[in-house]
């Protein structure tokens, strides 16, 4: 019955994983975070939060949500001197909607418009910062490992062209 316990443990881990992904503080500041809610073509990214704290201050990724003074002057009029808010993981503001959805109500003055999608927010923030400070991966394979679905999508293997049919 030992293998049953292994399977249950594995399933529990998988479930827990799917909950903690993208929740930066869910398991503490100094942990490796698995980012994988949107992973299909690539396997989840293992993000070393502790490492990144050494390179960047909170605001550079979390904007006004951690209580630090925002670095973007555009945010200051509303968020200067704030205590921070409870929602500070990426996917609580960055959804996968298009512009049409994020900007549905044009009758009010919204400052949180043109908000990048979750996927966009990661790649815009990560790559721009890596490029800016001259360290850290800037190409896909630097953070990601292609899944089988990804290999098919990017047509990485010859089998997509001929092998598939000959078999």
């Amino acid at each position, binding site marked *: 019955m030992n293998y049953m316990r292994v399977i249950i443990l594995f399933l529990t881990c998988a479930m827990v994983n799917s909950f903690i992904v993208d929740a930066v503080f869910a398991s503490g500041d100094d942990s490796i975070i698995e980012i994988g809610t949107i992973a299909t073509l690539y396997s989840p990214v293992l993000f070393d939060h502790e490492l990144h704290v050494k390179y960047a201050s909170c605001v550079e990724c979390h904007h006004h949500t951690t209580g630090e003074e925002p670095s973007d002057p*555009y945010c200051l009029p509303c968020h200067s001197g704030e205590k921070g808010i409870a929602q500070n993981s990426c996917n609580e503001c960055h959804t996968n909607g*298009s*512009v*049409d959805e994020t*900007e549905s109500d044009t009758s009010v003055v919204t400052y949180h*418009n*043109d908000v*990048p*999608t979750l*996927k*966009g*927010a*990661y*790649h*815009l923030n990560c*790559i721009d910062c890596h*490029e800016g400070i001259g360290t850290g991966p*800037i*190409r*896909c*394979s630097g953070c990601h490992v*292609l899944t089988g679905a990804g290999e098919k*999508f*990017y*047509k*990485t*293997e010859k089998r*997509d*062209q001929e092998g598939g049919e000959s078999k």
Partner: protein
Amino acid sequence: MKSIRFSRRRLVTISLAGVMTGLLAPLQRNARGSDFPGYTESKGVLVDLTRCVGCRTCEAACNLENQLPAPERPFNDMSIFNEQSDHLRRPDDKAFTVVNRYDSGSSVSPVYRKIQCNHCQEPACLTSCFVNAYTITAEGAVLYNHQVCVGCRTCMIACPFSVPAFCYSSAFSPQIMKCNFCYPTRLVQGRPPACVEACPRDALTFGERAELLRIARQRIKRNKGRYINYIYGENEAGGTSWLYIAGVPFNEVGFDEDIPKQPIINYVKDFLAIVPMVLTIWPGLFAGIHLLVKRRATAIDNDPKLAESDHDKTAA
């Protein structure tokens, strides 16, 4: 005799009507060409060149969505950019979109740019096609119908962005290949094109064209120094559904800055005005000539002397 004279008077009337139609037609065209503001619900895509990193995911997504043939090399092969120094890649019958790298003088890092049909608001491909193989939807998608196309390839010459590509593999059933804005599979349900959804950097933003223009201006204003103050496609060729903002001058990254700001139709309308004239005046003119010749023939039939004199003339 009488009937011929009557016909001739009618001919003059018809011809005059033809001339009037011919002269008025360009006026009507002009009114539409310069005043048409585009459909209000027209969709578009804002391409932010400062965000594109040349990952080619959009190319792969397009290939999958449109079930295009497998590429010679994988879509995650970046070495393709190293081989383009002499000729930049263009969309063709096997790829509706391609990404190229540009080493712009104004930027230290290379700039990447995705090319596809810009879905003009007043498409030259559509206006140039004399069998109406092209249509434009209310969403702004410019669609091509191969069942109507006769394969004359005028659209390939007419397009100011050289987008339509000819599929040479099927010489007997003409087929122009170009981006269709994912209209049949996505746009029709209000969903963004496959490339937009796949882009990891939100370099492509889908939305209403008017809203995208507002967003583009906002990005330019909010991020001082990141962009040059210009939205390519806002007015080019009369306005395109795909819009571009960039951090370097557009002519450094392969954009044609000399493209007229007015719909291409305005530049060919003088020529096109001849078409209704040909259609209206020529029938009258040639019918007239025909009747004159016929009249002479009838006259010869009735009067053999005339025929003899005619014969003498030809013999001499």
